[in-house]
Each structure stands twice: as C-alpha cells, then as structure tokens.
C-alpha cells in the first residue's frame, strides 16, 4: 500500500498553499466571518491561477484531475481555516456536466471558471429535509412554458448565485423518487423572492428561504430528463460527502495544531499545560481521530479513482469525519480555556463552523440510516 503523493499532487498542493498564503490569510478569513461576506476575492484568485478549471474535461477548458487531488485541495483550503473554500461549487458543476444541455454546460462553466458562484442547490423545503420525498414544489407545463410554485429553505448562496438548481416534484406520481425533475433557473426572474436566514456559523456563506410564486420558465431550463431528477442528484452525493469529510479533515487538523501549540506554551501551575496528562490524553485522542478521518477520506477518494462503488463508504466517511472532527474541535476549545471563546481565537470560528457539517449534506442520523440498512441487507 502506497500512501505517498505523486510529484504532481505535491506540486499542486505547494502551489495551492502559496496561493492561500498570498490571498487567504487568517485576517482575511476572520473578516469574512465577522462581516458575513463570501470569499469573492479569493475565488477570483483561484480562478486566475487556473484552480477553477480543475476536475472537468479539456473540451470545456478544464484540466482533468482525479478525486484524490480534488479532495487534497479541499482539505488544504480548510486547513487554512476557510470553510467550504474549495470543492463545493465544483461538485455542483459536475451535476450540470453530467446531465445538462450544451447551453447549460457553457453557461455554468463560464461562471465557475470566472470565479463566480454559478448556482445554488435548491432541494430542501420546510416540509422536506431528510425526507426529500416530502417535497411539494411543482413544475407545471402550460402554453409552452413551465410554471414553478413552492418554497425552499436553508439554500446556501442563493443570493449570490446567478442560477438555482431547483428540484420539483410531480405530486400526482405515487413514486416520489421517480417524480422529481431538475431545473436550472435564473434567480432574477419575476416571482422569485429570496429571504436570508440568520445563522451562527458558516458566516462566509449565507443561507436562505427561496419562494417561487408562479415563476414562468422556458422548458429548456430542464436539466437531464423529466422525472429523473432524484437519480441525477444521487450521482454526485457520494463524492460530495467525501469532499465534506475532506474539509472537516483540514479544519480538524487546524484545530488540533492550534490546540497543541497552545498546550505547549500556555503555563499554569508553573508549567506548560501540555505537561499535564489530562491535556496529553486529549491531544492523543485528537491525533488518533485525525488519522482515522484521513484514512477514511483518502481511501474513499482512492475508491472513486479506482472506479470502485463506494456503496456505504461515503456515508461512513461523512458520519465519522463530521462527528470525530467536531470532537477534535471541541477538545481543542477546551484546551484553550477562556481565550478560545473570544472572537480573536480561530478555534472559536472552527468550532462553530465544524458543527454544521453534522447536519448539512445529510445528517448523522441519515448516514447511519444508509449504512445500517445496508449492513442488515448484506447479512440478511
């Protein structure tokens, strides 16, 4: 088993670190957090340095990259302290690359490569969270047009993005997973209202309620096949879970390093607190968890590259990474004591931000649901 990186991966990571050091300092990230702003300048820099072309085919101006490389970059951006700094938008773009029309591919890729946010993912509804079959947003055909009605919630980046990738449901079809359709809709159309929701973390990405009130769209906004929306969505879910876990890995590593440095220098009772075994126990457990997350994340990425079906691996990886990652952040905060709670300490932001990963992208419970059901099935 070879755990080493290729020259190309190592060089790309070095380059990426150079870019992060230049364009994404801790003070920049802290300012985004404080002012609730997206990382626009950093995204532009990513695009100028060619990082927004990674991971999709050359015929669309991209540079192909394997899953492990993309996961390593997501980890690195997160290690810098930035939440969702790399990977998220790329995954969304892949939905369009797989199922979109030529026109949709061109539009979305041009926006993404220019460092802009192409679209938000509009799936969750007030009545349909973990259970997306409960969705009630509809698309009705009338006079050569399609009319969208309904509402979505917790939609990340809806205000910023030019488009929304909206999932609708045909309520007359009794098989919910064969009754959903996907639409790429401009967000400035009449009838669309976006209402931001205040939250306590991920301040560099707003999330919103989005209301569709008799929104008239062209039938060409359909992505892929009608009623195939759910299956299309599922295609990239597995990879998304691995990328979320990779981001957690980077931020957990950052939290661990901050805590270890603090433990080595903060003195109480005449000695560094790191000399106390209770603190060493925390640091050791954190280090073990970090290695476990790393192994799960890298192995999942390796499986994707090897063309192996992930089955439940992506859910296991997300479940473990987000739980253990948050435990690492929590222990790190504990090691900091009072100073860790202040806004100036990076750990306070990491702790807040890392908590959300146990909900967004599928909750812990839903991951367990997926894995547990499969285990019982396999042995049944």
């Amino acid at each position: 088993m070879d755990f080493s990186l290729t020259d190309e991966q190592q060089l790309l990571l070095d380059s990426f670190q150079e870019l992060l050091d230049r364009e994404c300092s801790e003070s920049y990230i802290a300012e985004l957090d404080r002012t609730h702003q997206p990382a626009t300048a950093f995204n532009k820099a990513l695009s100028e340095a060619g990082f927004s072309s990674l991971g999709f085919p050359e015929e669309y101006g991209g540079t192909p990259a394997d899953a492990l490389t993309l996961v390593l970059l997501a980890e690195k951006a997160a290690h810098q302290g930035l939440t969702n700094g790399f990977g998220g938008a790329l995954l969304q773009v892949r939905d369009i690359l797989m199922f979109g029309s030529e026109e949709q591919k061109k539009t979305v890729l041009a926006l993404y490569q220019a460092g802009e946010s192409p679209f938000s993912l509009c799936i969750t509804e007030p009545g349909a969270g973990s259970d997306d079959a409960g969705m009630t947003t509809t698309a009705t055909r009338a006079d050569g047009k399609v009319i969208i009605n309904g509402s979505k919630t917790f939609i990340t980046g809806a205000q910023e993005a030019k488009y929304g990738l909206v999932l609708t449901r045909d309520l007359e079809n009794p098989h919910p997973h064969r009754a959903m359709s996907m639409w790429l809709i401009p967000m400035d159309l009449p009838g669309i209202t976006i209402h931001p929701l205040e939250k306590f973390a991920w301040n560099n990405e707003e999330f919103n309620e989005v209301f569709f009130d008799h929104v008239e769209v062209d039938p060409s906004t359909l992505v892929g096949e009608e009623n195939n929306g759910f299956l299309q969505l599922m295609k990239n879910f597995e990879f998304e879970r691995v990328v979320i876990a990779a981001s957690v890995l980077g931020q957990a590593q950052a939290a661990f390093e901050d805590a270890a440095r603090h433990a080595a220098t903060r003195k109480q009772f005449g000695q560094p607190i790191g000399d106390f075994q209770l603190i060493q126990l925390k640091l050791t457990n954190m280090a073990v968890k970090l290695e476990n997350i790393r192994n799960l994340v890298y192995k999942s990425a390796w499986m994707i590259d090897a063309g192996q079906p992930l089955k439940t691996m992506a859910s296991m990886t997300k479940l473990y990474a987000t739980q253990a990652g948050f435990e690492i952040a929590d222990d790190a905060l504990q090691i900091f004591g009072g100073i860790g709670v202040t806004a100036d300490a990076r750990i306070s932001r990491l702790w807040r931000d890392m908590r959300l990963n146990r909900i967004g992208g599928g909750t812990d419970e839903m991951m367990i649901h997926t894995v547990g059901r499969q285990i019982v099935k396999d042995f049944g």
Partner: protein
Amino acid sequence: MTITVLCKWCPDTEDLEVGSDGSISFERAKWSISEYDRVALEVATSLATEVGEVVAVVAGTSIIDTSMTRKSVLSRGPDRLVMVVDDRLAEADARQSASALAGAIARIGDVDLVLCGAGSTDLFAQQVGIQVGERLGWPTLNEVASVHLTGSSCRVERRVVDEIDTLEVALPVALAVTADAALPRVPGMREILAAGKKPTVVWSLDDLGPPAAVDRASQVVSTVARSHSTRLQVLFEGSPTEAAAQLVGALRHESLV
C-alpha cells in the same frame, strides 16, 4: 534569444530547527526553489513571451536530481532545464556555485541574458549572480527592479537607496533582480503537467571543462543561530496618530531613531 535563469534548490528556512546550543538543523526542512529565484523566473518568462526561450539552470549535489526538482522549476515557465549535478558541490560557497553555473552557461552557448534572484532563501549571500557575470566577462548589475529588451541591449531600472537609475546595457548581461521585480506565478495543474514533458539535461562538473570545478575559497567553521533580543511587547493605544506619536517617542527613548 536565450535567457537563462539561475535557480537554487534549497531548504526552506521556515523549517529550520535551532538547538538549545544555537546549532541550526535543516534536516526536517522541505526543499524548494529559492523564493527570490522564482521572481527571476517570472521576469524571464514574461520577457520570453516576446523574444525567445528560457533555460533554467540548477546546480547542486545529487540531492537536486529528482523529478520533483525538475517539475517544480519547469512548472514556473522555463522551456527547458539544465542541471549541474555533482557531489563536489556539497556545501558549495558562492565561488564554487558561480563557477559551475558560468560553466553551464558557456556550454549552453549563445546566451544573451542571465537572470537570478537577489540572493538565496537559505544563505542570502547575494554573490552568485555577480560572480557568474564576472566569470563570463559580462556586464553585471544587481538591485534590478525592471528589465526591458531593446534589440541588442536592454534597459534596466535599478533602485538605489532613494533613487531609480535607468540604464541601457549591451547584451549579453547578467542581472540580479529585486524581490519585488515581479509577482511569481502560482503554477496550476496545466503548468505542472506540462513541466513533466519539457526537456532536461544533466551535466556533471566534468562535462563543463576545468574552470567549472574550483575549490572552495572559504571554509565554514561554524554556523549558529543569533540569540534573539527580548521583545518589549509594548502596546500603543489611542487613535492612529496618537499611537504613532507614542511609537516614535519610544523609539527615540531607546535611541533607535
């Protein structure tokens, strides 16, 4: 036209470890292209888009002879790479390095312009560029903030204390550029993949003729870290004007201004 860029492959000073006795260890350091030479590579690459090819030259012991070194240098723009790999260059001083590099430039032939960084990240002796020019018998300038090629000569701006000198120098010429002469690119995947396909030649000192291999002019007796003066950790509060006034006052008090 051929432009050569001298690049040093050296340990990252951020990774150096200082022992309790002041000893300095680079054992756990990551190696990369000297930061200042990245600037020279960028200047060369932007000039070459107008006029010709860029050849990077790296010299050192067998430690530099890796695919990582090659791809790292070549991903930053040059068209090809010449490596002088010879274990006689272990702990080379400026004289030895300059001889080896000048030998390589002579062997490349028809070089019009040699560029290098202000100094190296690890030693920062600021000698090699000047000594290479001297060995080649070319005009040599340091502190060069910008370069424009004008046919058979080049126009350079030098920053000297508070003034900027503009000079016209006939080619061939050797120039050491300032750290801010250009913002080095961050190579992307495309440049990194392309780097693996660019040509590299490896020469030993013996391939370069006798003048390239010279003895060290000096011997390092010891290297220890300087002891740091204690920081006063004074925080000046109030408006920026008040804080600035307090700072100047404190510096005066310490006879520092």
